[in-house]
């Protein structure tokens, strides 16, 4: 923990930043013209350029992918005019190694490319632009110097339509999440336009306006008072008049139910955000996991929102989830504080509940290392697995997976669990609903049901595990062996799992158990799986009622058959081989 060796690649600039005074003579003579990425391709740059006006250090860089060539030198004009002689074509990338105690991941975001949404005609119609391109056009430092013009004829548009949720809240294109920032960005843009050009008419097409932050609602009201029309409904189609290059939107106004057509000089697509494309490499380097949306997953959404599952790694900003500047700044501050606390700690407390591997019993299969969500088990083919105790969080997934009994969970051993199971089911097992409940959610859900005085049958008997992934197949089978009519395995919801994603192992294990029970002629329905959060007391009570109803369908014959089918088979004694006499 807190012991990283980081290798950083410093890319070659080909211009010495300590000598360059940004005179710009090099860019004047450079013959290469390329689209300027910072200006969203709305203007051009040279092969030698300052990436953006606020760049630090404020010196030129030479993009060798765009340059006409330095080996052999095909042009060399920039070096000829540079009085300071700060251009060095032989510059090389530099690798810097640092020992660090904490890593803050803040790799930002990418913007959704709406080209695939053909109905909006982005790239087909010149006057359909994205909100990012709009930002450049309205910016004083942008390609038009802040004079807002439409791309087709460089005239100022009078009627502008904004379309919300382009690339957000759309499961059909695999982006079901809200991008968080687009509503307020459009409201800000409409106010900006109303301020700069009072005669411009703005219309916003939306599904829902999400103005939930401090002063956001006030800003939304000001936008409406400034004359911006808000129409509930997203356009299904955009067509262009080839003469005027004006755009007609067809939309169902879901407030009135009427199909409407609206003509605009320009349409702005309020594009959503997507997880950074290069996150996968970092993800494998730091053992980070991702949510189904592709953003990095924190250790816990409520209790450890800036901590990565790998200890000593923290998140800030968009890479963890879409958020606005204020939230990003808050998270960055929190991440810095968490990192500072780690770096200044003289002693670090680790979980008392950790795995211990018995080296003599380990069969070197490596299954434990494969299921550990923290990467806390070191294993190489042919070698005994070793637990890194500082990294182990104690979910018990490895202990439940090991088929050779080589892993012991401190304080939650197999022997303790089997003793609990046998004790609970020692007397009248047929009258009991047997349940495994995870410490953090399901067990707390039971508490919630209790303190809320919710009524449910008193037949249930709970065994607490730290994680549902700690419940091994053998533990479930032992409950059935002891006469349990029904067994429930319950844990946290996917997003709430306190051990990153350990409860996915629970799902796999229960799937295997259903197959196994069916093969043995045991009704697989007698084993149930539920995700119950700490706040879901109502669900806990409902599940317990359902389990009791299910229990009442199980006959004594079924229970006896189950106990027989699962009874341990007597081991065959190996026949001793008679010694063979060998003639000398």
């Amino acid at each position, binding site marked *: 923990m807190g012991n990283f060796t980081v290798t950083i690649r410093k890319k070659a600039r080909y211009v010495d930043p300590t000598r360059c005074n940004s005179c710009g003579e090099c860019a004047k003579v450079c013959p290469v013209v390329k689209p300027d990425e910072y200006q969203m391709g709305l203007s051009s740059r040279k092969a030698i350029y300052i990436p953006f006006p606020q760049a630090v250090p404020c010196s030129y860089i030479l993009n060798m992918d765009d340059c006409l060539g330095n080996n052999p030198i095909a042009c060399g004009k920039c070096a000829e005019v540079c009085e300071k002689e700060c251009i060095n074509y032989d510059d090389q990338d530099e690798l810097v190694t640092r020992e660090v105690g904490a890593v803050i991941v803040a790799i930002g975001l990418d913007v959704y490319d709406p080209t695939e949404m053909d109905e909006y005609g982005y790239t087909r119609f010149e006057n359909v632009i994205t909100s990012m391109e709009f930002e450049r056009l309205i910016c004083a430092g942008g390609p038009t110097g802040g004079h807002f013009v439409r791309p087709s004829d460089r005239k100022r548009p009078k009627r502008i339509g904004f379309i919300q949720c382009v690339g957000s809240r759309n499961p059909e294109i695999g982006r079901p999440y809200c991008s968080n920032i687009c509503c307020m960005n459009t409201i800000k843009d409409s106010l900006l336009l109303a301020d700069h050009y009072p005669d411009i008419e703005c219309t916003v097409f939306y599904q829902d306006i999400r103005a939930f932050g401090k002063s956001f609602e006030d800003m939304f009201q000001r936008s409406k008072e400034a004359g911006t029309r808000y129409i509930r409904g997203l356009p299904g189609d955009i067509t262009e008049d080839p003469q005027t290059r004006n755009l007609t939107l067809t939309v169902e106004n879901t407030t009135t139910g009427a199909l409407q057509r609206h003509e605009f000089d320009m349409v702005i697509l309020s594009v959503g955000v997507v997880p950074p494309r290069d996150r996968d490499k970092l993800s494998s380097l730091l053992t980070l996991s991702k949510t189904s949306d592709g953003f990095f997953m924190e250790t816990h959404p409520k209790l450890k929102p800036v901590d990565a599952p790998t200890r000593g790694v923290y998140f800030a900003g968009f890479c963890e989830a879409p958020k606005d500047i204020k939230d990003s700044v808050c998270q960055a501050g929190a991440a810095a504080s968490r990192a500072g606390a780690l770096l200044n700690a003289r002693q670090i407390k680790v979980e008392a509940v950790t795995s211990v591997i018995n080296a003599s019993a380990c069969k070197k299969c490596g299954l434990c290392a494969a299921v550990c969500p923290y990467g806390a088990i070191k294993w190489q083919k042919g070698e005994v697995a070793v637990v890194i105790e500082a990294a182990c969080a104690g979910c018990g997934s490895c202990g439940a997976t090991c088929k050779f009994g080589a892993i012991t969970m401190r304080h939650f051993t197999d022997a303790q669990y089997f003793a609990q199971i046998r004790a609970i089911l020692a007397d009248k097992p047929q009258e009991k609903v047997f349940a495994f409940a995870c410490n953090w959610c399901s067990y707390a859900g039971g508490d919630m049901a209790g303190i809320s005085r919710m009524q449910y049958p008193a037949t249930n008997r709970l065994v607490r595990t730290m994680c549902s992934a700690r419940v091994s197949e053998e533990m479930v089978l032992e409950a059935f062996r002891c006469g349990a009519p029904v067994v429930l395995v319950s844990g946290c919801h996917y997003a709430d799992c306190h051990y990153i994603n350990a409860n996915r192992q629970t799902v796999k294990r229960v799937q295997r158990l*259903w197959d196994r029970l069916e093969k043995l002629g045991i009704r697989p*329905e007698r084993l*149930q*799986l539920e*995700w119950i959060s700490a706040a879901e007391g109502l669900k806990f009570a409902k599940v317990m009622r359902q389990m009791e109803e*299910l229990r009442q369908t199980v006959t004594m014959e079924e229970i006896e058959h189950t106990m027989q089918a699962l009874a341990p088979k007597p081991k065959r004694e190996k026949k001793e081989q008679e010694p063979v006499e060998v003639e000398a």
Partner: protein
Amino acid sequence: MATRETFKCMMCGHVYQESVEPGEDKERSCPKCRSNSIRHLKAAGADAGKDG
């Protein structure tokens, strides 16, 4: 490439089909009774789209 897979709710017995993306990590619940006891049926023996 998403594939249509068959699932069975072990609580109410409802059998249904759903698109599954390769490598997707999604919490499943029965569209009928909301139970999480969802069994992923293998191709053989699955009677798609019918209540079991």
